[in-house]
């Protein structure tokens, strides 16, 4: 009992600390729904001290890159023609709910796909909006003064993948390019998906000098729905003049996803030499 008393504060401290303002925890951070069950769920947890109004909606979107290699997830209310969207036939129950302080709420997800849905993977995003009470910004409690209040809404977006049938995935990696600027090595990874499902993996970059010693490395989770050409930046500090090799490997190793959800695929690799003057 004495031991338990000693450990109790530490155990309680290990529980999530309450946030100071709005925002709910949405878990998991990616939902996979199988055609056999056509259902899933997410859990909301309000770690704050005030109730939060939560809304749940669906949109279409997936990561893409711009010409500079910046990744963005652009959301649209409707699915563009030719895209395998699931947002139109996904429903959430409830769609609006107030989550009390330090309370949790399960949101059920139900899919009602068309009867003749072909085998394949279908994509959507869940948008969970959390709105707290009005937040008074510093002002003067005087009817003759101008007082200002801002309401804060925080939206968390997570992916939904609906799978029907046996699916495969993979990527091809076109020749990478790299350059050194501003104490960093910048690498472009032109990735194109193969197979019938999105590729969820991890890109790892390492930079070694001519003696084979590592001078920098980085890794990033990548999601290739069609094609992606991200730019990864590896901080290396000031490099001495000479030759360096930039190595890239992309694999389906994802520590943040259950093993069965990131479909397996062969690892792809490439390397390129850069010269620092």
């Amino acid at each position, binding site marked *: 009992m004495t031991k338990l008393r000693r450990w109790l504060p530490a155990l309680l401290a290990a529980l999530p600390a309450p946030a100071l303002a709005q925002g709910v925890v949405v878990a998991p951070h990616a939902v996979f729904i199988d055609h056999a069950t056509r259902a899933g769920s997410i859990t909301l947890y309000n770690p704050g001290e005030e109730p939060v109004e939560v809304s749940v909606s669906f949109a279409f979107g997936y990561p893409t890159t711009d010409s500079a290699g910046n990744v963005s997830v652009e959301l649209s209310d409707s699915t563009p023609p030719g895209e395998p969207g699931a947002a139109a036939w996904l429903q959430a129950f409830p769609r609006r709910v107030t989550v009390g302080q330090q309370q949790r709420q399960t949101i059920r997800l139900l899919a009602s796909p068309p009867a003749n849905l072909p085998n394949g993977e279908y994509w959507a995003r869940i948008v969970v909006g959390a709105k707290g009470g009005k937040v008074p910004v510093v002002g003067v409690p005087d009817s003759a003064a101008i007082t200002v209040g801002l309401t804060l809404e925080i939206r968390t977006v997570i992916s939904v993948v609906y799978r029907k049938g046996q699916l495969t995935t993979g990527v091809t990696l076109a020749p990478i390019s790299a350059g050194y600027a501003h104490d960093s090595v910048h690498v472009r990874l032109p990735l194109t998906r193969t197979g019938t499902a999105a590729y969820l993996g991890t890109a790892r970059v390492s930079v070694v000098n001519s003696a084979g010693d590592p001078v920098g490395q980085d890794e*990033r989770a990548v999601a290739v729905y069609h094609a992606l050409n991200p730019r990864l930046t590896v901080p290396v500090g000031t490099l001495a003049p000479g030759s360096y090799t930039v190595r890239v490997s992309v694999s389906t190793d994802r520590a943040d996803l259950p093993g069965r959800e990131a479909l397996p695929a062969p690892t792809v690799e490439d390397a390129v030499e850069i010269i620092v003057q």
Partner: protein
Amino acid sequence: MRRKRGRILGVLAVAGLLFHVPLMAQGRPLVPAGTQDLGFGTLIPGIPVHVLRSDPVGSGQFTLRGQRNAQVQMQFILPATMAGPLAATLPLIFGATDGGFSAAESIANQAGFDPRAPALGTLSSNGRATIFLGGMATPSPTQPAGAYSATITLTVSYTGL
């Protein structure tokens, strides 16, 4: 004694089931939270007030917690005006450098971004970051007194899913 001990262990087990197991089972969810309001202080008609994102007291501040070293996208929806009494409006202006991102969670060590467009940031090695927001309120010389309000929306997502 045994009953008490069992009760405490039971509470801890339930707490673990409630909070940890379901929420953390598939990696860390991305958890945004507002921690400080964007504050313009006392507004006087005709006197614009610009709050810098580096203002420790006035800047809006949001924390992010999530996967270690994960890249996240953040996007604000910012109001152009605040609604006040008798349909009066009070203009707000957000400039190209009014957003700030700090993986170090330091107001003195933030990278600026345009909060009017989607922006990217990378969480720290312990999965944390802070977003800062500045802006300008521009009451007109004839701005009616009263309470004004508007909504700021911040949307966040991982880019690797």
